């Protein structure tokens, strides 16, 4: 994925619908500049973010994962972010304990009115991930797919390249 010089970090951000997503929206409508490396996934609440969202992102080769929700005390569902905070405190420490670089997975609070803050969070995180370089540790070796180096002639190899929509062949209506 990474050729030196051309590599750009890929960051996935799970943003709560009520605060951080709105904050991102505000940053966008206010035409604030921030790094284009982030892909946003809207979730109902930071409490909705299953650790698997984060781990699967890393497994698929994402370089950084951000989870952002409402500031404590401002959760649309009253306590979702409080619960999330406990979960993430443990998860972040566990991942770093396992050797995942500090900063790959981050958490922040951004309210609906904090477009500037959102842009700064993304800028800061992108810079940090850029320093860390491409994520490698949890990345699952991508499937090698077809026709990789060795096609064994002793086994059959199937290849089809008929046009996608052939003329429909007449259906035998004999038996209904």
């Amino acid at each position, binding site marked *: 994925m990474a050729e030196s010089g051309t590599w750009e970090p890929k960051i996935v951000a799970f943003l709560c619908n009520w605060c951080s997503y709105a904050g991102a929206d505000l940053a966008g409508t206010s035409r604030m500049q921030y790094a284009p490396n982030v892909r946003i996934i809207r979730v109902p609440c930071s409490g909705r973010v299953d*650790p*698997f969202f984060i*781990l*699967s992102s890393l*497994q698929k080769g994402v370089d950084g994962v951000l989870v952002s929700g409402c500031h*404590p*005390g401002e959760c649309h569902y009253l*306590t979702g972010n*409080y*619960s999330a*905070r*406990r*979960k*993430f*405190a*443990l*998860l*972040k*420490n*566990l*991942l*770093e*304990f*396992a*050797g*995942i*670089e*500090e900063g790959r997975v*981050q*958490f*922040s*609070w951004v309210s609906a009115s904090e477009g500037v*803050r959102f842009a*700064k*969070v993304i*800028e*800061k*995180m992108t810079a940090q991930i850029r320093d860390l370089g491409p994520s490698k*540790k*949890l*990345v*699952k*070796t991508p499937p090698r797919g077809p026709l990789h180096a060795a096609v064994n002639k002793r086994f059959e190899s199937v290849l089809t390249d008929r046009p996608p929509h052939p003329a429909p062949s007449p259906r035998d209506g004999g038996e209904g």
Partner: protein
Amino acid sequence: MSEMPSMETFVTTEIRETAGDLLRKNKVQVVIGFERGSIPLRSRPCFVRSEKDIDRLVWDGFCENSVARYVAKRDEKMALVAKGCDSRALVELIKENQVARDQVIIIGVPCRGMIDRSRVEALVAPRRILETEEKEDLLVLKGSDFEETVPRSDLLCDSCRTCTHPNPVLADILVGEPVVEEDQDPFDDIEAFDAMRPDERWAYLRNEVNKCIRCYACRNACPLCYCPECFVDTTLPQWIGKSTDTSDTMIFHLVRAYHLAGRCVACGACERACPVGVDIRKLNRKLLKDVRDFFGYEAGLSLDEACPLATFCPDDPEAFIMNP
């Protein structure tokens, strides 16, 4: 022999009497305890349903399994021969509504720590042990042409070395004398590991999980892994692949440990079950430490205290939250 009967012999007798009494009076349908195993250095779980079978029950330094593992989703009324860790697991299971408090009678046994058979085997290898005998703080190992006496404390399981609650925290009947407890687990091993460089930590764990054959013995031996459908078995979505790919296996171990955060009672059943010696405890202990440091919680100690991930405090630590 004029020697005093060992603590183990004494406890065994008491357990048998208690079990017989409970069965006779129909207070329980089954007593889940331990019996002598089929090979040296092994005792194993056993289910006693009739008074005539109570002599199967034993107590010794090899009762390493978790009897709490068997209580979830069982209809019978049970009596359980519970070590300190088993009683802590039962506390959690009761709190998580997997078993009703009045469905179990806990025969608590203060635990001197269980003996790690791999340590014993390594000690005498390549000679084979045919028989063992526990004498106070010593373990006598007997083979066909040797006899060796070793301090018990040299042979304890890792989880027993760091155990701070060897006495049952919840018991209806206590058998045997309470043992001295350590004040606090210093988590030296975790601090030392944390002091390593991230790449070293990763390399170590990667090497560990690469041994894993995905037999799920760690999960199945765990008294608190009772989910009807485990995350490794879901297909929609399928979170992790089924092969022994390093990334999949690492995620399995990370999430297995994480799902036990605030619930793990540090019994070590997972690690003892592992056939290939994966250092499973490393992740569990990290979470034990963090749960204690962050939320001041230790699992299995009280029936009233809420599970740490089922509650929160407005002023929970949040130094990890990023501020731009």
